[in-house]
């Protein structure tokens, strides 16, 4: 999965990255809540050049009935990349990648939403990636969490999507497109900032245990930074009063 490194140089001589970031520095992140008027909750996240929008509908009656759970709500997540979100246009519709991301994202969100409060109902979470520049699943999780909070759905905590990886044998936070394409490892995580629990975890590439530990440390540090922006977005939306 991770491309090999070799000819492509991803680190400058002074140890900074091609875009000038330090190894433990995030791309710029902007978050807004309450951006879609017809949804029950919504969020817009720009992370680097990634743009994700999430909408939440519900809780609503779960149908077809076979998906209902007697003791809890089901969370129905769709992660979708817009046809124009990537360098080569992608055909609309679900593919294996988007199905898998939707599944693990739903399971992550089910671990924080108080689903037992809404038996037999469904909460729809729609994640639309409008521009993709590496790390869209994490941006989607962050957006979905803010949208759920904006919808007033009770949660134990929000989930912050963050990733670290490895380029030229160096662990770095938040891979951009070139680093993702030519790097050696990627460790996306969904972190609950208040409890420190991990709700989402994937990894591919090659990391030693020490490298994993460092990547993990970077992710936790970044999660608390992004969490502040998530809270601020919700406060701003609430004070605008149009959420």
């Amino acid at each position, binding site marked *: 999965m991770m491309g090999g490194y070799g000819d492509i140089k991803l680190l400058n001589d002074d140890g900074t990255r091609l875009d000038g970031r330090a190894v433990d520095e995030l791309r710029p992140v902007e978050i807004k809540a309450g*951006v*879609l*008027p*017809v*949804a029950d909750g919504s969020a817009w996240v720009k992370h680097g*050049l990634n*743009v994700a*929008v999430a*909408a939440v*509908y519900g809780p*609503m009656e779960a149908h077809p009935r076979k998906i209902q759970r007697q003791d809890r709500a089901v969370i129905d997540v*769709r992660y*979708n990349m*817009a*046809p*124009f*979100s*990537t*360098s*080569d*246009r992608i055909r*609309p*519709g*679900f593919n294996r990648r988007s199905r898998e991301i939707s599944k693990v994202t739903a399971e992550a969100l089910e671990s924080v939403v108080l689903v037992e409060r809404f038996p037999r109902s469904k909460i*729809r979470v*729609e994640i*639309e990636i*409008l*521009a*993709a*520049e590496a790390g869209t699943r994490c941006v989607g999780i962050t957006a979905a969490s803010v949208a759920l909070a904006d919808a007033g759905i009770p949660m134990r905590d929000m989930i912050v999507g963050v990733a670290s990886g490895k380029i030229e044998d160096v662990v770095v936070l938040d891979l951009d497109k070139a680093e993702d394409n030519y790097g050696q490892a990627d460790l996306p995580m969904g972190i609950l900032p208040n409890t420190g629990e991990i709700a989402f975890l994937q990894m591919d590439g090659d990391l030693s245990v020490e490298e994993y530990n460092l990547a993990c440390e970077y992710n936790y540090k970044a999660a608390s930074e992004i969490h502040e922006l998530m809270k601020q977005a919700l406060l701003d939306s609430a004070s605008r009063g149009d959420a």
Partner: protein
Amino acid sequence: MVQLVPQLLRQQLAELAANDERIDGRSRWQSRDVELEVDILYNAEGSAKVVMGDTIVYVGVKFDTAAPYSDRPTSGSLMTGAELRPVAHRKYEPGPPSPESIELGRVVDRGIRESGCMDMESLCIVPGESVWRVMIDLHVLSDGGNIFDACATAAIAALRTATVPAKRFDVGEDFKLELKSTPVMCSFTRVGGRYVYDANEAEELGGDERVHITLGDEGHLHSLQKGLKGVLMPEEFAEILAQAGDKCAELRELIHSKEA
């Protein structure tokens, strides 16, 4: 809920119409505020966002190269797709493109194509072998009514600010897509028995048929579509066509104001 609410709403809309009023306080031919942003998405070679009241749409333009059609060996091609994804409203379900989304894509496509605003010959790379294919994708994020005008406005704005990525395809230097005119759509919906411009969500829910009109720079008609159940008289069409001229000119001015 599905049955009862529209019935009560229809009654309310009819009473408002009788007093020449609308549910959100607008006058009959008044549009909601329109916001337009262009060139906002990384990876799309042309992009635009339109906000009209509670409606929000994004449009992206992508290019690739393909073999031309055998009967038009020097002509590029245009494709317009629309997605009414479940993000846009609780009424939309996941699944293959619905008839509604196909209609939306085709009506927007016709207005652009038939206006002749794109010089398809300028999109030829090697005659008979390779031409540019222009792909417009309409992406509705929030359906608060009149997504047709929002999509058509965003589509022509995205096209007019698009760059053909020739360098990425190794066929020369990037160049601006050339557009000769600005076809603009405006749509009218029968609400409470009479036509109004730019219907909102409630007016569509409790209204009847809609008529979409695309006009070119000279005021010529380039596409028409009547959608949904209902009928209209020629005098009614004449009335909305007269309004369409002014409405399209306003939108065209907005689109041109975003061009560098």
